[in-house]
C-alpha cells in the first residue's frame, strides 16, 4: 500500500456525526465498568491488553461490546470531561453501548466490511461517517 492509499470500510448506518481521529485497537472486548477507570478514561483492568492506555479522543476499535448499564451512562460523563473516544467501531455492538453513544453523541458503528479488526492498526488515522455507513482508514506511515 502507498502512503496515501485509504482502505474503505462500509456497513449499515451508525449513530453520531462524522469525525476523525487516531485509532486505538483493542484485541479483546470492552466494557466501561469492567475495563475502564471512568475517572481518568484509562483502561484499568490489569489483565486487559490495553491496560494503562487512555481511550480519550481516539477512534476506539474493538471486536465486541461488553458490559451492562454503567456502559450506557459512561460515554456522556466521559465526554463532559473531554475523556470520551471520538468514535467507536465494533465487530458487534450491544444495546448498552449504542444507548450510551446515542445519549453522548459519540459516533458508533458495527458490522463493517471488511472487519476493522483485520484492517485497522493502532495509530492509523480514521475518518468515520456513521450516517453514510462509511469509514476510511489511512495507514500510519
Amino acid at each position, binding site marked *: 500500500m502507498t502512503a496515501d492509499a485509504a482502505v474503505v470500510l462500509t456497513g449499515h448506518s451508525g449513530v453520531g456525526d462524522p469525525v476523525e481521529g487516531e485509532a486505538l485497537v483493542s484485541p479483546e472486548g470492552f466494557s466501561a465498568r469492567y475495563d475502564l477507570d471512568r475517572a481518568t478514561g484509562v483502561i484499568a483492568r490489569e489483565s486487559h491488553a490495553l491496560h494503562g492506555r487512555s481511550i480519550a479522543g481516539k477512534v476506539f476499535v474493538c471486536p465486541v461490546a461488553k458490559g*451492562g*448499564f454503567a456502559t450506557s451512562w459512561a460515554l456522556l*460523563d466521559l465526554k463532559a470531561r473531554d475523556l470520551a473516544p471520538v468514535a467507536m467501531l465494533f465487530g458487534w455492538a450491544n444495546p448498552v453501548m*449504542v444507548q450510551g453513544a446515542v445519549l453522548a453523541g459519540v459516533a458508533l458503528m458495527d458490522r463493517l466490511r471488511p472487519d476493522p479488526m483485520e484492517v485497522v492498526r493502532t495509530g492509523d488515522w480514521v475518518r468515520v461517517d456513521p450516517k453514510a455507513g462509511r469509514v476510511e482508514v489511512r495507514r500510519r506511515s
Partner: protein
Amino acid sequence: MKLTAEEAAILAGHRGKPARRALEMQIATGEFFGAEEMVPVTSAHLTGDAESMGDAGLAFVEELAREGARFVVPTTTNSRNVDFACYRELGQPEEVARKEQRLRELVVTMGAIPLDSCTNYQSICQPRFGEHLAWGDTGTVIWANAVAGARSNFEGGPASYAAALTGRVPAYGMHLPECRLGTHLVELRDQPRSASDWGALGCLVGRQLTNYWLVPVFTGLGVEPSADGLKQLGAALASYGSLAMFHLVGSTPEARTLEDAFGGRPPRGRIVVEPGDLQRAYRSFVAERAEVDLVVFGTPHLSIFEVRQLAGLLDGRRVHRRTMLLLTTSAEVKALADRLGYTRTIEAAGGRIAVGVCYYIMTPRELARRHGFRTIVTDSAKLANIIGGSGYNPIFRPTAECVDAAVTGRVAR
C-alpha cells in the same frame, strides 16, 4: 421506523419535551439495530446510580425533571451506591450519598417506586410469558427472558428512563422470536450442586460466548435448578458474556425440547462441560496472598433462602478481626431476615447486612483506599468478574468456603 399516531404525537412534542427526547433516542438506537417499529412495555426498571451516571448523567435526569417528566408505566429502581443507614460507618463519601439522595427525590417525583434492588423479580415484579419489558439491570433482563419467557433487551440507564417516559421500546433483539433462539449447544457432564455452582457454569460458558447476540442452550441437566441457581447462572452469563438469553432444555419455557430451543436450526457451536470443569472455574481465580480483606455475598441481591443458609453457616462462629463480612440484599428480604432472627445471628458473628446496595457500585475504589482492601472473596461469579476493574484481587469460591474465609481470615491459594 414505522410510527403509530401516538408515537408521531410524542415526536411532535405533544407529550412534552422529555418524552420527545426519549423517543428520539429510542429511534436512533432502534434504527441502529434494524428495528421496524416500537412495542409497548408493561414496566421499566431504572438503572442509574449517582456513581455510574457521573455528574453529566445526574444533570440529564435533573433536566428531565425540570421539564416535567413523568413515567407512564410502572417503574422501579435498581440497586444504589449507598445504604443511607450505614454508609458513614463504612466510610463511603458523603458526596455520593448526597447525590444518591437527590437522584432518589428526582425519580420518585417522576413516579418511580424506589425498590433499590437488582432482584426485582424475586421481590415484587412477576414477569410473565410473552410480556414486553424495559428492564435495565442485565441480571434482571436475562432472568425475565430465559426463566419467565418475557421479552426485554438490556435497556441501560438512559434507555430505561426513555422507556419509562414513552411506555415503549424499539422492537429489536430479544423482542423478536428469531433473536431468542439458541445458537450454541452446551452439554453438561458436570452437574451444578449449589447456587454458586450455577454461577460457575455461567462463568465457564460466558467466557466462551462473549456476544449479546448469542444464546446458549443447556442440555444434559440431571438436577432441578433452584430459583437462586437460575439467578446466579443468568447474572454470570450476562456479566461474562453480555448475554441476555439462555435455554435449559426441559426447564425453561421456550425450550420444551432441543428442537424448540434452536427453532430447528443447527447449533453454530458446541461446548462440553466436563466433570471437574465447575471446580476449575472457581480455581481460575487465584489469590495473590492468603489474607482475606473482605468477604461479600449478595450479587445479585440475596434471597431469604440464601440469608438463612448464611445465618446457619455463621451461627456460633466469629468473623476474623482482619476481615470484613458484608451481605447485600433488598429491603424486603432484610425485613424478613430481621423478623426471623437471621440478621441477629449474622450480626452476632460480626457480619453486616447492607440494604438496597450492591458491592460493585458501593464506591469500591473509595472503600479499597480507605480500608486497604485488595483481596475479596465471594460466592458470586458476577461480582468476582466485575470487581477486578476496581483494583481488587477477586476470589470466587463456593458459599461454605467463603464463610470459612471470613472466619479464618484466610483463603487457600
